[in-house]
């Protein structure tokens, strides 16, 4: 009896193995393409962020969440590894000279996973649906209407020219099927229904905090994906996820390694992919509170911050220093004149002298009248590197005679306090003088964020945590957001960076390097997408 059972199991195992091994070369997507890339049966990509259902309304993180969602959904354009938009669902797109009408021509024969065609009506529907059910990532208030002269043409009519229109919405907004969503009234509650898109993968299984399973869309418009199945198990801690890659229980992971682990993950069948991350740490100063209301004081704080030392010590060299002009040095619109930070304690000291702060009682801390320069430096407690960096800042700033007490708080508390002393939009007033704050990679991918970050209006400067006010900056940021000509836009952006480097409402301190480990034997075509990560649908398609 037992022998029979064993034979049965072995038989089943053989059948299963036969089904799983699928090493057929990829079908030729078009004549003239000669390279054949072996198919990968299954790829295990550990996810440490606990994504929910991946519709545009329920998806969580920027990375990997957004890139999981865009395995299923397609956008009209898509960013290449350098962050430049290329046509995707759209064959081409162009604007009229005034920049008010964007004409988008779709590829022929695009279908959703259920076989229904994707047409300009779906594009129009997506925009209107999002205008009704807004998401922070896609604010479409500037789109007046979408015209659909034929099924393959969509014309976006804008209220005002929008310089970043290709970056977002075109290269960012997922097109949803009208026939599915038109009957959905509360999109935030689409928590279990598996999404239907037009992308290279279908989501075939989702179990909350357990697994997302994707199956290749064989009739994808850009050819059948190289990997047949992507399994994304949820692993709650990054340590366990890295261990899973090391021991072969996962092939890649969504989290970035800490620098000291890098050598360990570049041996024995393991490799890392990565580069200059765009997720950065910024020293925020509440410009509404004395003495931080004086630009000279903020400049002194920046001059006393030793970014290079922080990168060398806290990041073991695996990272980049921030630029006083706020824009990441690798971004195409970064101004070379405001790119490099300059640590200069003497300059910090003379700026503080100039403001009248002196250490009269010789306790190492400057004061003026009864105002002693001692403040709490807020930082969130779940990032060891950031806490270490805050301590280093406190040390070097202390040498200039300003005492900063590093105060580590839980992430939500730290985030809630790092707002100015007045409310912006739905955000209540905050409570801080100086804080370390990190922004996601997205804010460095689109220069229009420079307006949200520092515009003094509470409706436009929705991310103005510094409470910064400067009318000249406001005007320039309005101009750049409408400047359709790239060269003239970059000139305005360069000017804005000069103002920021001078006024210093927030000082970018450092950007940790992204280091993503993976197993070479499972899949070795990973490409790092500038500032973001390695999971990207374009990597999973055969080059054309």
């Amino acid at each position, binding site marked *: 009896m037992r022998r029979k059972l064993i034979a049965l199991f072995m038989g089943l195992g053989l059948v299963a193995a036969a089904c799983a091994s699928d090493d057929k070369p990829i079908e030729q997507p078009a004549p003239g393409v000669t390279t054949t890339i072996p198919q990968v049966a299954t790829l295990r990509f550990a996810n440490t962020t*606990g994504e*929910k259902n991946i519709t545009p309304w*329920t998806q*969580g*993180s*920027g990375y990997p969440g957004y890139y999981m969602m865009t395995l299923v959904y397609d956008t009209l354009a898509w960013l290449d590894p350098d962050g430049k938009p290329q046509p995707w669902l759209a064959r081409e797109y162009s604007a009229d000279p005034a920049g008010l009408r964007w004409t988008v021509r779709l590829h022929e024969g695009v279908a959703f996973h259920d076989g229904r065609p994707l047409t300009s009506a779906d594009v129009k529907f997506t925009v209107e649906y999002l205008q009704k059910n*807004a*998401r*922070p*990532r896609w*604010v479409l*208030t500037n789109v007046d209407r979408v015209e659909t002269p034929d099924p393959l043409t969509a014309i976006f009519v804008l209220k005002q020219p929008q310089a970043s229109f290709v970056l977002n919405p075109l290269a960012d907004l997922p097109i949803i099927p009208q026939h599915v969503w038109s009957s959905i009234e509360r999109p*935030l*509650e689409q*928590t279990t229904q598996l999404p239907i898109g037009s992308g290279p993968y279908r989501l075939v299984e989702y179990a*909350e*905090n*357990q*697994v997302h*399973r994707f199956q290749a869309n064989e009739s994808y418009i850009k050819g059948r994906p190289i990997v047949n199945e992507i*399994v994304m*198990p*949820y*692993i*709650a*801690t990054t*340590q*366990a*996820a890295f*261990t*899973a890659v*090391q*021991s*072969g*229980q996962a092939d890649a992971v969504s989290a970035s390694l800490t620098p000291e682990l890098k050598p360990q993950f570049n041996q024995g069948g393991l490799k890392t992919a990565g580069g200059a991350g765009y997720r950065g740490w910024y020293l925020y100063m509440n410009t509404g509170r004395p003495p931080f209301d004086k630009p000279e004081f903020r400049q002194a704080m920046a001059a006393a911050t030793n970014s290079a030392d922080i990168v060398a010590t806290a990041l073991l060299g695996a990272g980049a220093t921030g630029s006083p002009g706020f824009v990441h040095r690798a971004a195409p619109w970064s101004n070379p004149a405001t790119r490099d930070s300059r640590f200069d304690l003497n300059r910090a000291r003379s700026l503080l002298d100039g403001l009248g702060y002196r250490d009269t009682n010789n306790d190492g801390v400057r004061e003026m009248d009864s105002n002693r320069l001692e403040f709490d430096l807020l930082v969130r407690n779940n990032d060891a590197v950031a806490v270490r960096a805050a301590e280093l800042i406190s040390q070097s700033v202390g040498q200039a005679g300003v005492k900063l007490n590093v105060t580590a708080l*839980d*992430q*939500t*508390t730290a*985030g*809630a*306090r790092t707002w100015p002393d007045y409310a*912006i*939009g*739905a*955000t*209540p007033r905050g*409570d801080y003088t100086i804080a370390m704050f990190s922004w*996601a990679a997205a804010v460095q991918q689109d220069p229009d964020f420079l307006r*949200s970050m520092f515009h003094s209006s509470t*409706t436009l400067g*929705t*991310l103005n945590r510094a409470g910064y006010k400067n009318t000249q900056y406001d005007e320039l940021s309005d101009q750049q957001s409408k400047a359709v000509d790239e060269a003239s836009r970059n000139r305005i952006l360069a000017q804005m960076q000069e103002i920021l480097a001078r006024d210093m409402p927030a000082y970018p301190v450092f950007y940790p390097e992204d280091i993503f480990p993976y197993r070479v034997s499972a899949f070795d075509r990973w490409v790092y997408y500038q500032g973001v990560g390695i999971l990207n649908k374009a990597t999973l398609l055969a080059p054309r």
Partner: protein
Amino acid sequence: MADVPAGRRRHRVLRRLAVRVPQYVLIVLVAASANFALPRLMPGEPVELLLGEMANRLPAETVAQELADVGLDQPLLVQYGRYMAGLARGDLGYSFRHRRPVSTLVAERLPWTILLVGTALLISTILGVALAAFAVWRRGRRRDTASIALFTFLESTPPFWIGLLLLIWFAANLKVLPLYGTVSVDATTGLARVGDILLHLVLPAATLVLTSVGAVFLLARASLLGVVREDYVLVARAKGLRERSVAFRHALPAASLPIATSVLLRVGALAGGAVIVERVFSYRGIGTLMLEASFGRDFPLLQGGVFVLTLVVVGVNLVGDLLYPRLDPRVRR
């Protein structure tokens, strides 16, 4: 102690219930109110949780509408009233983050935590008591001294550290046990599924056992030591009983009272330890659910989840209260 007629015994149990139950109801009410107040005392609003990162970029009316939809626009007292009224109806509310009823989420997760904590409680108690019995019978010898040192060390070790060590040894290096999850991501059915669940249970349960067996051992050892010098143990020995029977038949039952108390008290402590252990092993229990809820200020989930945990712990204590007279004749009045 004379035998008590069955009728009077039942009467006593009822009287005991009449005293205890109102006390417990009061405890639950106070706990429910604390569950409401504590998350709201933390600074930070759940706006980003409700509407996504950078929620502030949304038009103000969208945000206001969303806050109104979940009742966060109401004064605290109104929110409190609604919450208590909901509890009275058995409605635990609706999670901000998951957009699903809290009761569904808790029902999905709680059985896993009960399995984990129950297994750990059972094994650590049996193991701790058995080891203590052997140690007492060999007290003063080298092995006894060594075991005290070992268990004191284990008891004072943080669970996440033991968990990580086990994870690296057994899951990563030896590859004999799964590294994460409650079940394999590849679906199994029937017996294979039971085996799969047990395999995934081994490391998290072992972590909890290792970190809690020390307490049981030290307590059981102390109470056994108090008993072994009693006359009836001497009598048992004098009767010529084997040492094992003396230990397990005569000494252990008498020493079991503080041990039984500690078992019930440890339910709460183990549930707390489970939060950490569940996270280390990505175990899909209520601990990880609560941890996530607190990160993003998911008020309803925090309130509801902690309330259910409160009910479980209070319930276990009530059962203990009622069982106590059975174990200890001295409190039967």
